[in-house]
């Protein structure tokens, strides 16, 4: 049984310079009546392995899209490294170069090779002529090969993306994101369709890269077990609201919102969110 400690509520200390993502009272809506997110407050420290857990339709994917500027909130404020995410904002557009985003469907280009898919992560560093002729500089190709070795794809450079297995496709998507030299890595249910062995391989890979590159990894899951196993922090989202945020350090779970609870109760609250 994991120990639960009472703490102050430190998640809203917005003055700290170490906060890479800050959201205060964020609402998003698809139309004027239906809200996907209802008053979300989040604050994520640099270098955290952060997990967002919730059922489908809870608004967790929307949360990721707010963090890379693909969506704009209808109300509330978001700061990513103290910049408001918006694709029309030049400063943020430059930041997007180093925000890795892996959508649930991965977004690979199926008719091109593995290495070409990965090199896409380096596109912002290319000039117009190089990118028009698909002429990647030698050091970028070497970097792509180094990352391929890191994620276990060596020797599959020329394979077309559509030929790969589910696990391999995820490795390509991770490699493409790492190619961006990211400071933030966003991943949407990246292991949800994999068997548990492959899922752990992929999670270990990300955890490894996260530590090595001091990334802020924000991963959406619907499996609480997996989230607790890998993340330092877990936020549970239910019907567009954050109902729980816990910190995980070794065997200790620290609850930031409701105070003293057992692991069973936490899992139970999560089960409630399924209904």
């Amino acid at each position, binding site marked *: 049984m994991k120990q639960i400690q009472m703490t102050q509520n430190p998640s809203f200390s917005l003055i700290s310079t170490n906060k890479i993502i800050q959201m205060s009272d964020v609402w998003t809506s698809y139309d004027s009546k239906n809200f996907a997110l209802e008053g979300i407050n989040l604050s994520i420290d640099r270098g955290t392995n952060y997990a967002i857990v919730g059922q489908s339709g809870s608004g967790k994917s929307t949360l990721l899209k707010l963090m890379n500027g693909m969506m704009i909130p209808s109300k509330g404020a978001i700061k990513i490294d103290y910049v408001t995410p918006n694709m029309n904002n030049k400063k943020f557009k430059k930041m997007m170069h180093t925000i890795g985003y892996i959508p649930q469907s991965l*977004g690979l*280009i*199926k008719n091109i090779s593995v290495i070409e898919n990965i090199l*896409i992560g380096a*596109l912002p560093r290319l000039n*117009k002529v190089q*990118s028009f002729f698909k002429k990647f500089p030698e050091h970028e190709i070497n970097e792509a090969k180094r990352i391929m070795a890191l994620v276990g794809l060596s020797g599959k450079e020329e394979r077309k993306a559509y030929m790969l297995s589910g696990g391999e496709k995820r490795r390509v*998507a991770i490699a493409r994101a790492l190619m961006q030299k990211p400071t933030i890595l966003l991943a949407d249910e990246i292991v949800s369709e994999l068997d548990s062995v492959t899922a752990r391989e992929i999670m270990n890979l990300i955890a490894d890269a996260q530590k090595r590159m001091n990334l802020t990894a924000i991963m959406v899951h619907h499996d609480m077990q997996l989230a607790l196993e890998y993340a330092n922090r877990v936020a549970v989202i239910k019907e567009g609201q954050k109902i729980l945020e816990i910190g995980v350090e070794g065997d200790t779970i620290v609850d930031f919102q409701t105070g003293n609870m057992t692991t069973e109760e936490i899992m139970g609250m999560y089960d409630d969110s399924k209904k």
Partner: protein
Amino acid sequence: MTPKNNIVIGIIIALVVVASYNVDANPLEFAEGLPNLAIVVEEMLSVEPKYIPTALWAMFETIQMAFIGTVVGTAIALPLSMLAARNLNSKYVYAPVRALLAAIRTFPSILWAILFVIMVGLGTFAGVLAIVMYTVGFVAKLQYEAIETIDSDPMDAVSSIGVSKWQLIRYVVIPESASHLLSQILYMFDYNVRQTSILGLVGAGGIGFYIINYIKFFEYGKAAIFMLVVLVTVLFIDWVSVKIRDKYIVKSQHGMEVTTK
């Protein structure tokens, strides 16, 4: 069969009869004309093999015209299709480009051929220009439709990196729509060979020029040689394009496993 269906079928048959009367389409005349067909066929059967080299050369010329027309037409169509795709442009860009493409498609290639014969004179060049125009209109339409059906996930994933629009087109749109493009180019070439074969009717070169002239002078035997060459060529091109399609397109579109070295 419901009574409603019977009424619909009855109305259609009545309309066919009325329209036939209006356009003088009399089945009796067709029956009376059958012996004439026998005469034509008989004359056609007396083929003159010495025209085979000429026919083959004319066919080769026709294929070259279709080839230039397809390649140049596709090259012009591609940038236009990028501009006409709704998922890449604002309304102010795609609407006028689509209107232009629709206008180009309004005319069949034979009308374009007449126009270009007036512009550049009789001969193969007018035919090539006609094929180019026709190809532009159709390939651009087929291609912008292909671009619009591209999966939005790779587009979102890559644009979230903050790449430029040109990079998005170069690295996502073109590869994702490439298999459609190859299929369309093959179809278009196939179609253009058949089109070019009749452009000679209006003096725009190609094998059709021989066919129409021999028919005009009742030399059905000579015309038959040329028509036979067209038939064989079209069947052959059709067969080759089916092979190419099977090899390169079907697999990549369905994501089938293929063996690699």
